[in-house]
């Protein structure tokens, strides 16, 4: 029996701005096992994005420990972390974070570029990922030439392109209509069925309902009452 793939112990993240200090996370402990599909819900400002950044090795906790597949992340070098982000994690950021100067497939191929995949294969895989989110006909469009929903789907395609074992998605359906939302959720369902671990941050109850379980966050703490649901 293997341990949890993600394990947080009393993780705190404190932002200090002059005299003011904000506890974005105030002591979070949680475990996520391999292949789990978890939804994270909570009011705006409760610390959801902060949690995702720590889980994705983009940010480090002020205190507490985070173990990824049994390894304490704080012991890893920048280069090792970059490799983990590249090979094992697929991100969908809240603000999409596409590069405006690159067209859709160039944006999607970025993780493959840093993985050292050859160009022909990159283009093939990027095209396939864009096809999966219904943008097969928008390969050469730049973000500025795409609608908000289309941009969000490009961001989803980029998270899938490396076929990562962990997907961290911050409001991936925030800008989508109900049909596109259903399509993206169908994709996640498929990935979950294939054994991928998924964490999905959302405001919407019916989106969260697609997950196997829901973690509720309030004021930087896991809401125990809600967490049981």
């Amino acid at each position: 029996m293997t341990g949890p793939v993600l394990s947080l112990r009393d993780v705190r993240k404190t932002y200090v701005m002059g005299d003011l200090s904000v506890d974005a996370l105030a002591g979070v402990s949680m475990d996520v096992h391999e292949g789990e599909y978890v939804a994270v819900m909570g009011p705006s400002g409760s610390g959801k994005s902060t949690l995702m950044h720590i889980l994705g090795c983009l940010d480090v906790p002020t205190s507490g420990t985070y173990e990824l597949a049994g390894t304490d992340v704080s012991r890893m070098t920048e280069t090792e972390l970059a490799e983990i982000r590249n090979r094992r994690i697929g991100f969908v950021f809240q603000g999409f974070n596409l590069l405006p100067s690159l067209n859709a497939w160039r944006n999607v191929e970025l993780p493959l570029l840093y993985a050292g995949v050859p160009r022909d294969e990159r283009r093939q895989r990027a095209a396939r990922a864009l096809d999966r989110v219904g943008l097969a006909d928008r390969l050469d469009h730049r973000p500025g030439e795409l609608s908000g929903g289309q941009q969000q789907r490009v961001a989803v395609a980029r998270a899938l392109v490396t076929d990562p074992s962990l997907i961290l998605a911050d409001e991936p359906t925030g800008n989508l209509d109900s049909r596109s939302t259903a399509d993206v959720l169908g994709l996640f369902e498929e990935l979950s069925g294939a054994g991928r671990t998924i964490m999905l941050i959302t405001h919407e109850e019916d989106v969260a309902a697609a997950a196997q379980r829901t973690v509720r966050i309030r004021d930087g703490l896991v809401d125990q009452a809600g967490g049981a649901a």
Partner: protein
Amino acid sequence: MSTFDTFRSAFGALRSHRLRSALTMLGILIGIAAVILTVGLGQGAQAQVQSEISKLGSNLLVVTPGSTTSSTGIRGGRGTSSTLTNGDAAALATASVAPDIRAVAATSTSMQSVTAGTTNWTTTVVGTTPSWAQVRARDLSAGRFVTQDDVNQARPVAVLGSETVTELFNGRSPVGQSVSINGSSFTVVGVLQAIGSTSTTANEDDQVIVPQTTFATRVAANSTRAAVSTIYIEATSQATLTAAYQEAKALLLTRHGVTSTTADFTLSSQQSLLQTATATDRTLTILLGGVAGISLLVGALGIANMMLVSVAERVREIGLRKALGATPAAVRQQFLVEASSLGVSGGVLGLLLAGAGAAVLPHFLAQPVRISPAAAAAAVGVSLLIGVVAGVYPAGRAARLAPIDALRND
């Protein structure tokens, strides 16, 4: 990330700010072109002087009267009263005393008015021996040179420089004709082949050569009868030049009864003549090159500045790339490649501009510009180095950005 992808990405970033990249490149372009041109001008001038001095003859040593030692200044200056004699020349030519000396030619000179028919021309008249042609590496285009017999008999014969012929005979063949010098009639027996006029030394194509003995009796005033203005010495080879120098010096010191601190003559080699002649050129080149180098430095600061602005502007992009798996090394490399691409393209364009300048400038300056392949390669190398050095700090900053700080920046 493959090298090709790194370059594609770097060029993409530079292209997205065309004007800014072009202006930054312009800084390096101007700097490189300025450096190459000043160095090219300096080298051109040096090569010019060098070729002129080498026209004097090969493996040549030159003895002139008077000393220019630093402690006493000029002693017994040229033209006042000469300390050199034909006896000195004869001693130097003795193989047993100076084995590394092949030939010696003593010359006495005097400015004289030379007349041919009704045409009059003032030029340098040189009294010397047959060895002069050998020592000074001169050939004849017509007739013969002064012979030992001419010297022994003090015959009134003369060999003319090519320009002297043009002035006096206007294209007609002068051999067999007679010219008048200082009231005496001389028969022209030969014409020297032209070697091209020179600006740093006397005009070698405008002179009249007569036998030394004839010069003493018919041309020069009585007081300077035996006076020798210059002794030219040819060493047996390039390798024995130093030995020949030592032999000549020792011999003359002994003959004149002086030590090297009280020497009344100056012994110089072609090398030392060259050094004196090019010293000022070199100083000027270094000075101008320094100014050009500063403009290159300003160009480098331009690259550093542009890269810093670029890093600040692209914090979001850098953060995203790191979030997607770019290692600090990959980020650093990308910015270094951007900076060095700016440097190298500026350098190559600067080289092209300098090449155009080298082709055009001589028409205005009457001065050759020489761009050696080594200088061209060095220019491109230096511009690459400038790009890398200017890019190190900005690239390091980009590499150190934490992905989250970079991503949040909005």
